[in-house]
Each structure stands twice: as C-alpha cells, then as structure tokens.
C-alpha cells in the first residue's frame, strides 16, 4: 500500500459546484493518484440517491394531495402545456449535448468539448428562462391554494437544481480553458457535472409527467 496522506487536499466535500471544481483541480494535479483512493463518483451517486429521495417525498405528497384533497370551489389552478413541453425538449437535448461534450473530452478534443459544454449550459439557462416566463404568466401565486403551493415548491426545488447544475457546467467550462486541466482519462469535474445533469433531467421528466400530463 502506498503512502497515505490524510491532510492532503483530495477528498470531495460535497456535490456543490465549487468543490467539484476544486476536486477537478486536485485531480489534475495528480493528488488523487498517490495514496487515498478516489471514490468521489461513488459518493456523488450515493448523494444523488439521497437527493432523489427528497424529490420522491415531494412527489408522494403531491400525489396524495391529488388523491384526497380536491381543489376548493373558486380556486384557480390551471397550467398551460406548450412552454413546459418546449422546456422538456430543451432539457432532454441538453443531456445529449453534455454526453457529446464528455465524449469529445475522452477523444482529447478539448475545443469541441468546451463548445458542447457551453451549448449545454445555454440550454439549461434557456430552460430557467422559460420557467421564469411561465411563473410570471400563471394566474395563481404561491399561497393561493394547495395545488399552487405544491406546484411552486416542486418546480422551484427542481429549478434550484438546474441553477446549480448550470453553474457547475459553466465552472468546468471555464476551468477547461487551462491546458491539462481535464484529460481524456482524468476529468472528474466534467464527469460529476454530467451525472448530476442527467439526474436533474430525469427528475424533470417525472415532474413533467405528474404535474402537467397527469
């Protein structure tokens, strides 16, 4: 077993963007190869299971409300379908563009990778913009009724995730300008942001299904 240095800066703290970026930086400097094994992707995946359970709790609450709490007479709760459908398409496409970016990175095409990262971040920000437009055009507010509150809580919590994900993408995009920062074999920052982004995308598909279609 190789020498292990517990004080060296090599473990992820959490899945927030700055630490991902930090982790990527450390990895690029080769800190993780000597000694302490790198299980950051496993840790992130476990964290996403936990995060997914938070959403599962919200979904369960929403579906139970749907089943037992009828909308009171006179209360307004109407959603339009076009804008969220466009948003869904944007987010699904962004998953593919991110996948494309990671693929380019594995083939050492750093320039193309950065381009695709930027496209992905742009799609994420476009989603957030669409969400904003929807919020301002809806005929109900946060405290109007149970369904209105649940709608804003669910989409808001998801929107927070999209915001964090877009920030992560922009950070790895910015870091990738440094030559040797991410290589074909070592690119934890990009890999982690990608996993997180697919997770956020998957959660949206469930949200879209139960909030807009059901």
């Amino acid at each position, binding site marked *: 077993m190789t020498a292990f240095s517990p004080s060296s800066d090599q473990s992820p703290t959490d899945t927030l963007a700055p630490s991902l970026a930090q982790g990527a930086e450390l990895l690029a400097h080769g800190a993780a190869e000597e000694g302490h094994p790198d299980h950051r992707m496993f840790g992130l995946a476990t964290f996403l299971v936990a995060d997914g*359970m938070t959403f599962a709790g919200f979904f369960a609450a929403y579906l139970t409300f749907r089943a037992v*709490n009828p909308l009171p007479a006179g209360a307004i709760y109407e959603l339009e379908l076009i804008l969220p459908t466009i948003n869904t398409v944007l987010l699904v496409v962004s998953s593919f563009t991110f996948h494309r970016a990671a693929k380019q990175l594995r083939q050492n095409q750093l320039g193309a990778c950065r381009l695709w990262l930027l496209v992905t971040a742009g799609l994420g920000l476009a989603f957030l913009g669409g969400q904003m437009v929807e919020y301002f055009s809806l005929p109900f507010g946060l*405290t109007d009724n149970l369904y209105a509150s649940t709608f804003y809580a669910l989409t808001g919590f998801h929107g927070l995730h999209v915001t964090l994900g877009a920030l992560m993408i922009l950070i790895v995009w910015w870091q990738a300008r440094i030559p040797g920062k991410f290589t074909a074999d070592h690119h934890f920052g990009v890999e982690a942001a990608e996993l997180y982004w697919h997770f956020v995308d998957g959660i949206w598909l469930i949200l879209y299904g139960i909030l807009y279609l059901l």
Partner: protein
Amino acid sequence: MTIALPPQTSSSPPGLQPEGWLRYLSFSLDHKVIGLQYMVAGFFFYLVGGALAGMIRVELASPISDFIGRETYNEVLTLHGTVMIFLWIVPVVNGAFGNYLIPFYVGARDMAFPRLNAVAFWLIPPAGFLLIASYFIGGAAQSGWTAYPPLSLTTPAAGQVVWILSVLLLGGSSIFGGINFIATVLKMRRPGLKMMQLPMYCWAMLGTSILVVLSTPVLAGTLVLLSFDIIAHTGFFNPALGGNAVVYQHLFWFYSHPAVYIMVLPAFGLVSEILPVHARKPLFGYTTMVYSILAIVFLGLIVWAHHMFTSATPPWMRLFFTIATAFIAVPTGIKFFNWLATLWGGKIALNSAMLFSCAFILHFVFGGITGVALAQVPFDIHVHDTYFVVGHFHYVVYGGTVFVIFGSIYHWYPKFTGRMLNEDLGRFHFLITFIGFNLCFAPQHWLGLNGMPRRVAEYDPQFTLVNQISSVGALLMALSTLPFLINVFWSAFSGKVAGDNPWNALTPEWLTTSPPPVENWKGEAPLVTHPYGYGVPPGQIDLKAATGRELWSSGQ
C-alpha cells in the same frame, strides 16, 4: 491462521496532523479524532438532554403544574426529545463509534471521504447550540420532537423555525456521514477482505447508512415544506387552508420510524462486537445476523404508519402496517437468540462492558415485546399518546442504545486512551443506572395503561405515587452519571495502562497500539478474516461452519 500480521516496516510521514489534545478542537481529518469529537460533543448534549429530562421529572413529581409553567414544560419536552435523538444518540452510536471503528474493520487508513467526514461533524455543534439558543430568544419549539402540524403552526413561530433549521443541519450531517460509511464499507476494504468476513458492526453501519441515505432526505424536504407553512403561510399541512396534516405524518414517520433503527442497528452491531470478546466465543450465526440486518433495513422502511393508527388510517393500511411491523420481530428475534447462543457456555467475564451489554439484551426484548403489542391496532388505539408509549420508547432507546453506548465506552476506552477504566466504579455505575432506569420507566407502562396522557404537565392525582417512583428513578439515573464521569477523567490520567490488546480480542482495532497511530497501523494493515475466532484453534476455523450447528458445538 486467524490473523495475518504483515511485517511492520514503513512508518507514516510525521507532522501531517496536529498533535496533542488541541487536535480534538481542530478541523482534523483523522477518523479517530473525528470519532472522539463526536463522542465528547454527544456526551455534552447528553448532559443537556438529561438536565431537561430532570426538569420534566421534577415537574411530574406533583400533579399540578408548579415547578415550571405549561408552555415551558412543552419547550422542555421538545428540546429533551430533539437533543437526545439528534445530538446524542444518532451522532454517538453512528458518528462516534462508526468513525472510530469502521476504517479499522475494513482495513483502511481513514474513511473514504475524510474531509466530508470533518464537515459532517462540525455541522453538529452549531446546530446544537442553535437549538438550545432558541430557548433564550423568545422560546423554543413547543410541538414535541414530532412537530406535528397544525400544532407546530399554532405555537410560536420563531422557536419552531429555529428547530427546523437545526434539524435540517443535523440531517445534512447525518446524510454526509451515511454516504461516507457506505463508501468506506463497500469501497475501502483491504484487498482480500470479503464482505462476509467483516465484523458485524460494519454490516450494522452499512444497513444504518442505507436507511439514513434513503429516509433522512424525506424528512428534510418535509421540514422545508413545514417552514413554508410557518413563514410564507402556504397550506401544505394546514387543514384550515385546504392542506393535509396527515401527509406530514406519513412523510415524518417515513424518516422517523427508520430513525429508530438508525439508533438501534449500530447498537446491535456494537453488542455483537462486545459479547464474543468477553464470552470468549465466536459470534453465533454470523450469516443469519447479516441477513437479519438487511431484513430489518427493508422492513424498517415499510412500517411507518403504525405510528398513525389514530390518524384516520384506512383499514387496509392498518392491516398492512400491523403485519409488516409484526414481521420485524422475526429478524430481531433471530439476533436476540444469536446473542443468547453466543453467551451460552462461554467463559463470561462479568465486567462493566458485559453487564451493560446483557442489560441491553434484557431491556431491548422488553421494549421489543411492547413494540409488537403497540403494532396491534386495538391495543394501540387504547394506549396511543399515553405514557405506555413513553415507557416503550425509552426501553428501546435508553435501555437499548444508551446502555450499549456505555458498554462500548467501557470496552473501547482502553483503545481510545491506552488506559483501563476502573472496574469497581464501572460496576457501581452499571448498578445505579440499571436500577434507576427500570425504576423510572417500568412504572410508566402502568401509567399509560391506566390512561395518563403524555406531553402534559398536569395529571390526575391518582397517578401521583407512581409518578414519584418514576421521578426517583430519574434522580438515580442522573446520579449514575457521576461515577462514570469521575471514572473517565480519573482513568485518563491514572488508570491502569492497558497495552495494545487488554481483552485479547481479534478484531483489527486491537492489533495496533493503544491509542493507535495517525494512519492506524505502522506498515500494512492486517488481514483479519476471522474476527470472532475465539475458543477454536486457529486454522480449524471454517467460515462456512460459523453459521449453525457446527459452531454451536465447536465453540464450547
């Protein structure tokens, strides 16, 4: 061979960690330092929670509300529950022993994510002080540790919001810890060490951490929604605004029933480490123990609504949750009989660690039986929200887990400090804790069966005598802390020097110095494939036989 000790060659580079006692106040990344930080911080909060419990028992020594006002009583019982669960039992039985022991048990030099580990610990003191401080800034939360709406919506908002914030921080700490334990047990094992060769505490912590990762986030999300109801006046859980209070109960118990296993599964694991050492016998039925833990994890996630039989649960739901709860008695019973079989015919050393562990078995069986009784709808409706539930709960978490924490401190203190605890003081500590605990909580079952409601500062005068007996028991429990504290402080400086392995134990943490060096071993980690190979000549141990009849006879 039982143990393969590689040659002790290279030494760890010096100067990587702060030395001396100051490192316990630092952002240390050493899992042993973090473990002891958890333990000392947790014990501080145990004293706080104990003082709050003392206030409750003083108030209940007389039927009228004379010692503290009704609202203060509500604040005290809320703080007592929250402090004891989130700041004492969960951090100590998971964080303290888990951090200290798991890297040894898997043959690693630290946890998978040392920095995340330190972050998880350092979330706890601010969260704890935040919670206690809420009492001094306009009053603490008054709605109990369950914070059921609409009660939590109608009591003063400031204390309730601070309570939510504090529990969210502690939940975050718990999730970070859980991720770390899962990664450490699954990914950090020494090459050659198989899952079915791990000491039982690893399995217990793996199961516990799965529960933490799956259920704690649900509580966090629910509390965020509850805080919206309080601050933004949304109506998720407020029936007056068209919301549904029962949904809160479902989501809350989806975490808080597994929370009971988060508190007691690690205790199962610790007892499974202590009993074989002091009975000089292999742990009976290793494989069945492992599958029992996994069964408890699975069943623990699908029994939550047995806390809600009086919340207008439909008949099919009552039926399902009654049956599921009764099923949990099966794996738990398997573990109970395995411990008895481990003790059977062993060379039992009745030292403090063993006495606390045996008392745990006794109390946990009693608390388990009342638990199965409470899962039966007709009985539960009769005793719901009475002192019967309080008695049952404390038999599980105090008589169960806290007794194990004390037993574990007696067992591992020589490893922590290099010195033994005083046995006479330890046995004295056990005696008054045991008498005080049973005197305090056994009568509460009778009180509940006769209809005394819980969480009320006043009661029918016919219950006075039994309440006073219970309060005397609480006083004994408070006094029992003194010999323990004296023992811990005195022995740290003047205790008998322990040596590396005072119990002649086979689990890996004893195969290094006491206290262990920064990276656990000088040189390579030992490969321990038979952590319970007691009483059998090394080389004759067959792991497959350690599952049933063969072990029963060969272990004598």
